[in-house]
């Protein structure tokens, strides 16, 4: 390895056998990350992958980087400590919908609102895989699983809406069937300063096969995925015949021919008001209708760890470097002779 940080995909692959089920969407996400990293100016020793519990949480074992497979739901908390301790580290958090939205929902929203420097990859497969097939906080109402034989009555989270509600500064969605799109989104998430939240629609071919195929299969993509591109009108369809307009009642899909090109919403991911991004996140209730992908929001806000570090520097300038002897004598003292 040279100082130029030139690496190959092989440099990022650990010696551990990957043990996801054959055909799992996790493989393609792992490949996208391992293919992207050689393109970035990063060194393996500065990369840290932190996970909680679940199938996705095995991810760190397969990366030739530093890593911790922590406990269920707590990865953003552990990662926060690492990001605070050393700003030179590139901290990535990996977890599934159960890990990050159910047991760990609290840590996720607080990492996002603090805007602490890390990339958060949410593998959303709308099911509990490791515990063999119970419904998850993103499963649709009516989902029949081992724990809901008569159908789930739980209303699901929309992870993008949730992240926007937590005032996340970078919010994006991609899916496991499009490596190029994943790599591009991951690249942008990595370059963001602050917490970057990426929802990845990921197929669990054992317990929830085809959950996203209506929108992510090659033949359906052009008509069912709505690409969000900064500064461009939001359009989709084989012939870009569909578009999105923002009205009083929110975002809605229209035929471009009906409204005219000029009426289409032009995507502005830098809009400091998250309202329109939120409307876009509500375009689809489930992956059975046209669904936006890409970067919903990308704004700048002071990063937490840097702000905390800044206070240390300020304190040293104001109080001088820490002097233990002086601290011990900082309250009223008296002498006994």
């Amino acid at each position, binding site marked *: 390895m040279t100082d130029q940080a030139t690496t190959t995909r092989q440099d990022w692959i650990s010696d551990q056998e990957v043990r996801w089920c054959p055909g799992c969407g996790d493989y393609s996400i792992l490949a996208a990350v391992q293919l992207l990293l050689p393109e970035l100016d990063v060194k393996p020793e500065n990369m840290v992958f932190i996970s909680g519990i679940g199938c996705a949480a095995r991810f760190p074992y397969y990366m030739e980087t530093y890593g911790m497979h922590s406990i269920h739901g707590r990865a953003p908390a552990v990662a926060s*400590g690492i990001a605070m301790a050393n700003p030179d580290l590139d901290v990535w958090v990996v977890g599934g919908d159960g890990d990050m939205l159910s047991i760990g929902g*609290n840590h996720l929203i607080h990492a996002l609102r603090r805007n602490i420097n890390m990339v958060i990859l949410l593998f959303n497969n709308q099911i509990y895989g490791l515990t063999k097939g119970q419904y998850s906080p993103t499963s649709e109402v009516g989902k029949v699983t081992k724990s809901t034989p008569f159908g789930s009555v739980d209303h699901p989270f929309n992870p993008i809406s949730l992240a926007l509600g937590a005032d996340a500064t970078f919010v994006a969605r991609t899916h496991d069937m499009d490596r190029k799109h994943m790599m591009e989104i991951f690249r942008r998430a990595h370059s963001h300063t602050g917490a970057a939240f990426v929802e990845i629609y990921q197929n669990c071919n054992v317990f929830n096969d085809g959950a996203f195929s209506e929108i992510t299969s090659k033949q359906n993509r052009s008509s069912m995925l709505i690409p969000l591109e900064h500064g461009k009108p939001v359009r989709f369809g084989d012939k870009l015949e569909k578009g999105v307009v923002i009205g009083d009642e929110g975002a809605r899909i229209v035929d471009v021919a009906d409204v005219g090109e000029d009426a289409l919403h032009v995507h502005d991911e830098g809009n400091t008001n998250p309202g329109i991004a939120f409307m876009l996140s509500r375009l689809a209730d489930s992956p059975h209708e046209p669904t936006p992908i890409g970067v919903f929001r990308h704004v700048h806000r002071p990063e937490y760890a840097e702000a905390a570090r800044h206070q240390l520097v300020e304190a040293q300038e104001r109080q001088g470097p*820490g002097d233990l002897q002086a601290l011990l004598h900082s309250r*009223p003292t008296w002498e006994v002779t």
Partner: protein
Amino acid sequence: MPDTVLRPPREIERVIIRFAGDSGDGMQLTGDRFTSASALFGNDVVTLPEYPAEIRAPAGSLAGVSAFQVQISEQPISTPGDAPNVLVAMNPAALRVNIEALERGGVIIVNVDSFEDRNLEKAGYDDNPLEDNSLDGYVVYEVPMSSLTRKACGQLGVKPRDAERSKNFFALGLISWMYTRPIDPTLDFINDRFEGNERVIEANTAAFRAGYNFGVTTELFEYKYTVKPAELPAGTYTNITGNTALAWGIVAAGVQAGLPVLLGSYPITPASDILHELSRHKNFGIRTMQAEDEIAGIGAALGASFAGQLGFTTTSGPGLALKSEAMGLAVSVELPLVIIDIQRGGPSTGLPTKTEAADLLMAMYGRHGESPVPVVAAHSPSHCFWATIEAARIALKYRTPVLLLSDGYLANGTEPWRLPTATELPDISVAFTTSPNHTDDDGNDTFWPYKRDHNLARPWAIPGTPGLMHRVGGLEKEDGTGNVSYDSQNHEHMVRTRAAKIAGIAADIAEIEVEGDVDADLLVLGWGSTLGAIATAVDRALDDGRRVARAHVDHINPFPRNLGDLLSRYEKILVPEMNLGQLSKLVRAEFLVDAQSLTKVSGQPFTALEIEEAIEEVLGD
């Protein structure tokens, strides 16, 4: 102003004073100021603050009574005293709640202005106790503190309602006169504390002086008293609470380890003051993170430790329960981490502002699986400083989470502390691993994250170190390589190795020492904040000619290596604890000795008398 009490002050060896009033009356501040002035005067002092869990319970109610007890002495002391000699009661409720504790024939100084119908009713008095002879046998002084304070402040143009707030300074002034305390430290304090608010400085100063002068000019009091400075070991002293000492211990641990500190913490009584104090010392490179919950607090601290900092998390019982799973992770990934539990009354929310020491078994065993952690206990406010450094030393050297136990009594209680010099502090630094530590079968240098040293500690290689990339986690790991392993023999080996690592720390901690009559029949064995009461009780019993010894364990896991031998030398063992017998269970199980429990779970620390009586009972005639 000439003193109408012309006699010289009577010298007394010690006095125990309890200031009591409504939680809005500023009794904690009053007690703290009296303590500080006495400490600066050179007395030995020990305090017991006691306040309700509600921020402001209804004014005048029994639930809203806040009290502060202090013992000042010309002899070294180790408790806030058993029964107060003097009770300052600012209202009827304060009198009613505290009268029982007062010694027979003790002095009661009441703010007579507050003994009117409404307050008497709120306190549940059918008749005014100042008029119905129920206080016969006590020496009662009725002082119109409210009206005199209003009068003193009124001259400054302060509104009566605002003036009323200064009446605690009137009480402080009066008691300062009564016990011949220097007044300058309090006047300086008023100026510092209320800097920028001239009106408040003037009002409090006027009230304080009015109280002092009331003692000087009235003939109400026959005597004033003085307590000579104590003969303490030479040195520079400060008066310190356990929580401040503990926070400074965290600062010192970082300095002595040469590592930045990260404290991950969620506010909880009575531990929050540690977070407050540490957050003021960022110039030491200390990061304090007020986390979203208890779990995030320990999670962030563990993350910081993984990244090469010294991670701490502070909490009380309910928070410790929430941190259990993360502690198990820390046991598994074998990283340094100090978890600090300031115990309070439980279970559940329990008694947030009252003391108890009932988390010992949770500290020992409160995790799933075989999950041993070293347990260190602080035994006095100033010892919190040393115990914190010791906990950090063990955590760093053995790459393990360490549980440090304190309690509400130590946290808020104070004692004079002879300040150490920097050279008295141990070097607790450890080295990170920066190069491969293993050669594989093909002759290549490689890094094995679970290849242990002679202490069974694993290497600490931190992110950012080239070539040593590795993964840790909560899944069982293969010995040496640290790779995930479900192999049954490997698991058995790893469980036993983790246990052996912690047990082996016994060789690295001080032996326990016996005080008192070494050849006695009875040993009083204590841990934690009971030290002061036990020491006082045993000293008194020895003075009475009783044959009794005592020993105190600061390391509870592992126990000091000589503890078993020591216990076997005594026919009888008495274990006073602020729980239902947790240490006694441990020593009975570990050493098969017939330890007898003396238990107390009233939210109050032991008095020396209670332990003395138990000693008498065990020894018989």
